[in-house]
């Protein structure tokens, strides 16, 4: 009798202690599409994770899983993380949209945040950056710098985010150089260094002297460097190790402030489902240092463009603009609304080729 009582008390005490400890720490999980050492997309998300750890110290515990394929297996990985007791889970690639939605439906008291998607739930937020603002600056520099007037673009998957980037870069390259032509390769991967290098080489062999990439590794930078006289831009991360040539500038994703704010919201109990889409102004998109390979006057123009984007006085998609098929899209002075941008599935006038389905 006493023994049973004793044991029961001990179990209860143990249980209380464990739950007290569990409540002490907020567990934040991250699902990554590539390895944290990719030097690009996933590398920057992981920097955000480390910033959360540094900011909250002992109050948080972070877990992450790398190289999770987009699709059915992602659901297993996210579920596992929720079962491990994560309070907040960031799924950091577009292809995790449906799996995240499915898992969010099963775990009502876990908070989810999906990057670059558009589906939400009471416990599922979305967040993304207005990368197309950075693409505008890239397009400007690319249009000014190209001598062959051929700009190569390594695209990943035909999703609105990638198409926005192509359109934005094209509009601003065309604005400063009416002869410019875009050659686009769809790699159908976010991360495959050998394929990305092959794609860059194919574009260079066909006359491109500027390579823009929407894939995650630094392989195109290495391929451009090997070819010589080709310029590139860092993608997602600064990729400064390839400066001043071939990398002349970059788009830097800065997730740390957002991750810290959202973790804080979970701790305070103030977390709500939101749709965040921030650009250069709030600092979610950064423009890496424009290197010495770019002439001073072009650099000044690019920085002026960046400033106009940051204070909101200029929108990258401002009319008059037509769609690829020649139909009118935006009238003179009209700026595109977020709804159209989020679902963008068409090229603007002048780009050749079709978007894969």
């Amino acid at each position, binding site marked *: 009798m006493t023994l049973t009582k004793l044991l029961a008390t001990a179990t209860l005490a143990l249980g209380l202690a464990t739950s007290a400890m569990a409540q002490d720490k907020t567990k934040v999980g991250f699902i990554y599409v590539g390895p944290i*050492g990719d*030097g690009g997309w996933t590398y920057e998300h992981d920097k955000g994770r480390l910033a959360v750890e540094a900011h909250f110290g002992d109050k948080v515990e972070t877990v992450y899983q790398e190289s999770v394929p987009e699709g059915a297996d992602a659901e297993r990985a996210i579920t596992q993380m929720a079962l491990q007791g994560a309070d907040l889970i960031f799924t950091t690639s577009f292809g995790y949209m449906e799996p995240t939605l499915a898992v969010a439906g099963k775990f009502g008291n876990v908070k989810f945040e999906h990057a670059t998607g558009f589906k939400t739930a009471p416990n599922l937020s979305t967040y993304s950056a207005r990368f197309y603002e950075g693409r505008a600056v890239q397009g400007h520099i690319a249009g000014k710098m190209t001598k062959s007037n051929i700009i190569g673009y390594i695209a990943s998957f035909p999703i609105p985010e990638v198409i926005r980037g192509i359109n934005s870069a094209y509009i601003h390259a065309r604005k400063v150089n009416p002869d410019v032509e875009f050659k686009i390769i769809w790699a159908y991967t976010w991360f495959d*260094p050998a394929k990305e290098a092959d794609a860059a080489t194919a574009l260079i*062999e066909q006359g491109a002297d500027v390579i823009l990439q929407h894939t995650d590794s*630094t*392989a195109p930078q*290495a391929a451009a460097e090997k070819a010589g006289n080709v310029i590139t831009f860092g993608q997602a991360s600064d990729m400064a190790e390839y400066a001043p040539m071939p990398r002349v500038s970059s788009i830097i994703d800065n997730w740390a402030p957002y991750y810290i704010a959202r973790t804080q919201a979970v701790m305070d109990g103030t977390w709500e489902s939101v749709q965040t889409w921030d650009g250069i102004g709030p600092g979610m998109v950064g423009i890496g240092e424009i290197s010495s390979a770019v002439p001073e006057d072009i650099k000044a123009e690019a920085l002026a463009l960046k400033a106009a984007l940051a204070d909101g006085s200029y929108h990258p998609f401002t009319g008059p603009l037509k769609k690829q098929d020649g139909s009118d899209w935006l009238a003179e002075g009209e700026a595109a609304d977020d709804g159209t941008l989020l679902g963008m599935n068409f090229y603007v006038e002048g780009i050749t080729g079709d978007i894969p389905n």
Partner: protein
Amino acid sequence: MEFGSINPVLLLASLMVAATPILLAALGELVVERAGVLNLGVEGMMIIGAICGFAVAVNTGSPVLGFVAAAAGGALLSLLFAILTQFALANQVASGLALTLFGLGLSALLGQGYVGIKPPPIGKLDIPLLGDIPLLGPVLFSHDLMVYFGLTLVVAIWAMLKYSRAGLVLRAVGENHDAAHALGYKVVRIRVLAILFGGACAGLGGAYISLIRVPQWTEGMTAGAGWIALALVVFASWKAGRVLLGAWIFGGVTVLQLNLQAAGIAIPVEYLSMSPYLITILVLVIMSADRSRAPASLGRIFHASQ
């Protein structure tokens, strides 16, 4: 057919480069499988070769030493597989998969200090006279040494398996290890040597990606090349010549489809993207309509007492 801005000479030259990593890895695996061992750890051995080769080439400044280290690294990792499957008699499929996971993790650890570093450049072997032949010169005679090494290896392995006594013994071990054992051949020793050879070849293939094709170190950079090499061995019916053909088709169509996209040819991109896999499988399956089959003892565990 309008090829637009595609330069066929540059295209064929890129084909040779794109085919070399999977060719080297697949040749190694071919020898392993002909000895009756199924090593699914090719991807792991490739990535270990990629980082070992990269690290040594960067530290010594010598790409040749890098490739030697890559072969040694790949062989060392495969030794683990050899111990598990040949002495501890572990399941080959499970051990191979574990080897891949282990290799990917270990390479990420080893490679931490090497992200963003440039490897020493590797000179192309411009053969005088031959390299100046129009068309053929740039396609065939102006590559780096490893491309020729790969081609030599194809001939060497083909001749070894077909004509030499050592090749005959290796095949006997792979076809029927009990009979080979009864004849007095050291089954385990031969298999361990074959596994080490396979590991070294996979390591070289990996280093070719990190030192020449890309060239840089990035975690997980082989991105499935090892699995393609594995599939290639099966579809090539365990024949060296067909492995070469398969690697060329795969590498060639991969490079071609990227070039076609860049040139804006009006073929839907979805079809272009799947074409390397589809065409390679199709050609090799049609070719294997003859009676070629897998080595009879493939994947079976051998112990002298049984």
